[in-house]
Structures are given as structure tokens and as C-alpha cells.
């Protein structure tokens, strides 16, 4: 198991900060998008796209590549940030997000945007689709891994648990879900709208391996992903405790910022808080 050096951790923290800034810039420019759930994902996406995923932007169709499905597809902005910074398409495309002839859709579209593995947006699909993709890898003798990034509110959808049953029935150890557990959904706190606790024992009861991590701690995320590689008889979920809106004081833990773009003053304040010189 290769643990991260201190300098690599600092580097990934820096990437996470950059992904936050990129996401907010995209959302502000388009005057639409979902800032809260992008900001909570920054460290998770930094570790996945810049350390863990075996991908090659030169070969987006490489059969052995790892696959990531952003099941919480409303966090499209941070996926677009990571994919462009990883070289799948030019960062200038961000400025045209939502324009009629731009490949970047409101939610991820696998047919339009290079590097997007699956079209998502309506919640709940990732685990079941990921299970099928993991099964296909096994059938074809390919050793790629499938990562599914889930929201906590999303786990209220029954299809998530249908997929969870299928993944454990077939012992899909090449499937790893990462739960962005920020406890805020569109209408309010998850624990009020539809409580999900005890979340870890729910997944345990579905015969998944459950690991926990601070979703803003690069080392912990990385270690959990490494630990998942040593589980060989079942799928793994990493319950990553996060803060919705992380890094922007007025957005943190506020359901209002689930799907609203900041105005100019709010945007400038957010950038300042993230250490970006405007």
C-alpha cells in the first residue's frame, strides 16, 4: 500500500481548492448549477481524479481504464473541473457551459463530454449501473475498477438499494461507492427530510464492506480507497463525512446553496475565502 507523502497531500489539497474555485466560476458564469454539493466533493474528486483513477485522457476508450460514475450528477461542475484539469477537454469549454452548441450539459452526458463515463442527473442510478459495469469487467477478464460517487439524499431512492443487493449478491469487489455524506439536501437537512441513520449499518446489512473517512481529509480518503482494494469478496462503500458548501462560510451547511448560483458580490467573497485573487 503506497501511502501519500506530505508534499503529495499538500498538492492534492491544492487541487481540491482549485476544483472548488473552478466549480464556482462555472456556476457563477452560467448563473446556474449546484454549488453546495460540488464544494463538499472537492477532496474526494481530487484524490480520485489526480491520484487514484487509472485513466488516460489520450485514450478515453481504453478498455482497462477505471470508470467513475457521478451518480449525484447535479455536481456536474466539479466533474467538468476535474476532467478538464486532467486533460479530457480544454478548460475554455467551461465558459460555454449550457450554450446550445457546447458539449457540457446541465448534468453529465456520456455521449457529449469526453471522460464522462455515464449519463446521470436523475438520482439513484449509479450503484445498479456500476454493478452491471463491474460484472462486465469480470466477464471480460478486465481488471478495471468502478467508482460510484453517491449523495446522501440520493440514498433515499429505492433503486440504490436494489443495486446494492445485486452488487453484493455477485460479490462485486471491483465496485467502490463513495458516499458524500454532507447531511443537506434540496429541501433541508437530510436528518430532517428523511433520516438515513444508521447509514453504515444499512450498507453493512446489504453485505457491503463499509469504511469511514473524513471526506475533506486527503490522507483518510486515500487510505480508505487503498483499503477497499484489499477487500476481495464484496463491494465497498466509503462513508465520507463532508460539509455541504465546504470552504465558503455562507454556503456551509445551508440547503439554500444546493442549487443556486452566487451573485457577483457573493462570488467575489467566496473566491476571497478560497484564497483566490480576483
Amino acid at each position, binding site marked *: 500500500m503506497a501511502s501519500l507523502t506530505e508534499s503529495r497531500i499538500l498538492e492534492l489539497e491544492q487541487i481540491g481548492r482549485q476544483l472548488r474555485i473552478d466549480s464556482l466560476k462555472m456556476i457563477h458564469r452560467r448563473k446556474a448549477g449546484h454549488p453546495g454539493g460540488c464544494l463538499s466533493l472537492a477532496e474526494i474528486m481530487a484524490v480520485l481524479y489526480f491520484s487514484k483513477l487509472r485513466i488516460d485522457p489520450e485514450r478515453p476508450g481504453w*478498455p482497462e481504464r477505471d*470508470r467513475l460514475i457521478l451518480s449525484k450528477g447535479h455536481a456536474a461542475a466539479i466533474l467538468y473541473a476535474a476532467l478538464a484539469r486532467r486533460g479530457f477537454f480544454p478548460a475554455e469549454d467551461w465558459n460555454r457551459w449550457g450554450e446550445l452548441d457546447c458539449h457540457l450539459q446541465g448534468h453529465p*452526458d*456520456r*455521449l457529449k463530454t469526453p471522460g464522462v*463515463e*455515464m*449519463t446521470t*442527473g*436523475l438520482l439513484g*442510478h449509479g450503484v*445498479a*449501473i*456500476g*454493478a*452491471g*459495469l*463491474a*460484472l*462486465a*469487467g469480470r*466477464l*471480460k477478464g478486465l481488471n478495471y475498477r468502478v467508482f460510484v460517487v453517491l449523495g446522501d439524499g440520493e440514498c433515499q431512492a*429505492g*433503486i440504490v438499494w*436494489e*443495486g446494492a*443487493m*445485486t452488487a453484493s449478491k*455477485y460479490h462485486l469487489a471491483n465496485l467502490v461507492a463513495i458516499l458524500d455524506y454532507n447531511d443537506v439536501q434540496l429541501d433541508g437537512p437530510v436528518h430532517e427530510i428523511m433520516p438515513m441513520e444508521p447509514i453504515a449499518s444499512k450498507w453493512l446489512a446489504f453485505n457491503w464492506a463499509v469504511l469511514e473517512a473524513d471526506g475533506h481529509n486527503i490522507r483518510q480518503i486515500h487510505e480508505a480507497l487503498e483499503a477497499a482494494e484489499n477487500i476481495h469478496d464484496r463491494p465497498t462503500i466509503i462513508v465520507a463525512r463532508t460539509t455541504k458548501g465546504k470552504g465558503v462560510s455562507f454556503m456551509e451547511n445551508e440547503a439554500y446553496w444546493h442549487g443556486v448560483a452566487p451573485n457577483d458580490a457573493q462570488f467575489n467573497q467566496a473566491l476571497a475565502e478560497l484564497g483566490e485573487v480576483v
Partner: protein
Amino acid sequence: MGVMSIREAYGRALAAYGAENPEVVVLDADTSFSTLSHFFAEAFPDRFFNVGIAEPCLVDVAVGLALGGKIPFANAFAALISLRAAEQVRTSVCYARTNVKLAAGYAGLSDFKDGPSHNAIMDLAVMRAMPEMIVIVPADAVETSKWVKVVAEYDGPVYLRLSRAAAPQVHDESLKVEIGKGLTLRPGDDVCLIATGSMVGRTVKAAEGLAREGIDARVLEIHTLKPLDRELIIQAAEETGALVTAEEHSVIGGLAGAVSEALAEAFPTHLERVGLRDTFGRTGLDPETLMDFYGLGVEDIIRAGRRALERKTTGNVDRVRRA
């Protein structure tokens, strides 16, 4: 009766094709002894996946397998694929254009024993409205077995609508099927009867009945509801001026809907619709009398043929009948 049921023809053809094409995988939602996907399961246990009673999951797992390069046939009851799993079909199969084959069993009234809960009489309306979807309804056992290979080798989403019942044999082994290409089963210029699925055999009989009355009825089989063979239908409208559609489905949104839409744009023509007239079904003792009860009998098609011809001749407008 020596006629094989549609479902058995499908199940056996799928297992046979499985030997030919190792990329084919099959999924079921705890109905493999009903859809008869179990023939494949027995032959290729490592390529068969039973997800339990969870049709949305059935479809999404099939989507994942397709993303990974396999050719999945997802089997379940038509009512559940087209309604319970409709969002998965729309988003993950059609919008994402994944190479998933939906094998929708127990379609129409064919599950006469279980009744309206299990009947699928609006599935064609739902599936036709899905961009990217190919919608196919075979007429008999021979045709059903021909479609398996064609559907598997087409690259994209397909909805294959399958009856539980046996349908009268219409075709022989020389049949060749092509997506989007309707078949002319009988020539005729007085009226044109257009049928799909289990109604094709009944419609051929109806044309014979009309012939005894001196009415020369053309018979078209439209097995592909989408993309529709507009050319063949418009030509029939031009040449006969009186049309009848016949389907084991609601008259809303299925074959009647597709033909009406094409005609309204291209060549407005007198049209009579044979199908369930905006009603649910009921439980029956056998599929044939149940179909007759809902106005899908040979006599009903004959009457519709006469009415269409009369309207063409007199120009009468029918202001009474409802959907």
C-alpha cells in the same frame, strides 16, 4: 395445437443465439420461468443474472453491462419494464443510448390468468415516445425467433414486445425480417388492413372473410412500430383510400397512433382502429376469447374493413365513436 408460443420461441432462440455470440448476457427479474429466459440460464449460467423483483435495477444493471461492452437482454413483464422501469429506460437506455435489449414478456392481454394488473396495453405508447428506441412486435413464433439475432446485432436500444400466448402461424422459415421494413402479406386495393403482433394472424383471416364478400383487402404487417415504415403505409393509403389498424394494445399511442400520425401529416385517409378502446382489460379463461371480448376478433376486423370502405365510398363522417 402444434403452434409454439411466442415466449417459448423467444426463449429457445435466445439460448440458441447465446451459443453463437458470447457477448450476449441475459438478465431477469424473477420471471425466468415465465419469460422463458431460463433456457438461456440453463445453457449459460455464468452469463445469466437474476436481480430479483426489481425491474428498475434490471434495466440499470443491463445498462452497466452494455457500457462494459456486453449485449444484455433484460427480461421482465412488459407492464413493469414500460411503467415501473420507464425512467431507467428513458434516462439510462435511450438518452444515454446504451446497447440494451428490453425483452418485454406477457404483453397485451396474453396473461389472461392474472388479469389487468399484469396486462400491458399502453406499453407501445410509452416506448414509442422514447427517442432512440426501436420498437418491435413479432407476429408469430417463427418471426419471434428470427428477431433475436437481428435485435442482438443492431447497435442500440430495442424494445421487443412478446406475447405469453401462441399466435396463429403466419410465416414460414424463409421469412427475413429487417428493422423498419413492413411486410405485405396479401395484395388488395379496396381497403388495407394493417396489423401488428398477435393480430396479424387474425387480420389475415379477416381479409379472407372480406374476400368472400367481394372486398379485396390488402394486409400489411407492421412489426416495427418505430421507426415506422411510412412509405409502405402512405402507399397503401394512396392506393386503397381506406385503412384499418389492428393491435393487442390500446388504440391510443400504439399502431393506430403511429399510423394516424403518419397519415395526418402525409396523406389523410379514412382509418378504423381495432384495439382496446381506452379501457383496462379483465381476467379471462383463455387469451383468444379475452381478445374477442375486447373487440379484437376476426369479425371485428371484418366490420372495421367494411366501415372503412363505406366511409371511403360515401364520405360519411363518424361523429359518435369515442377513443
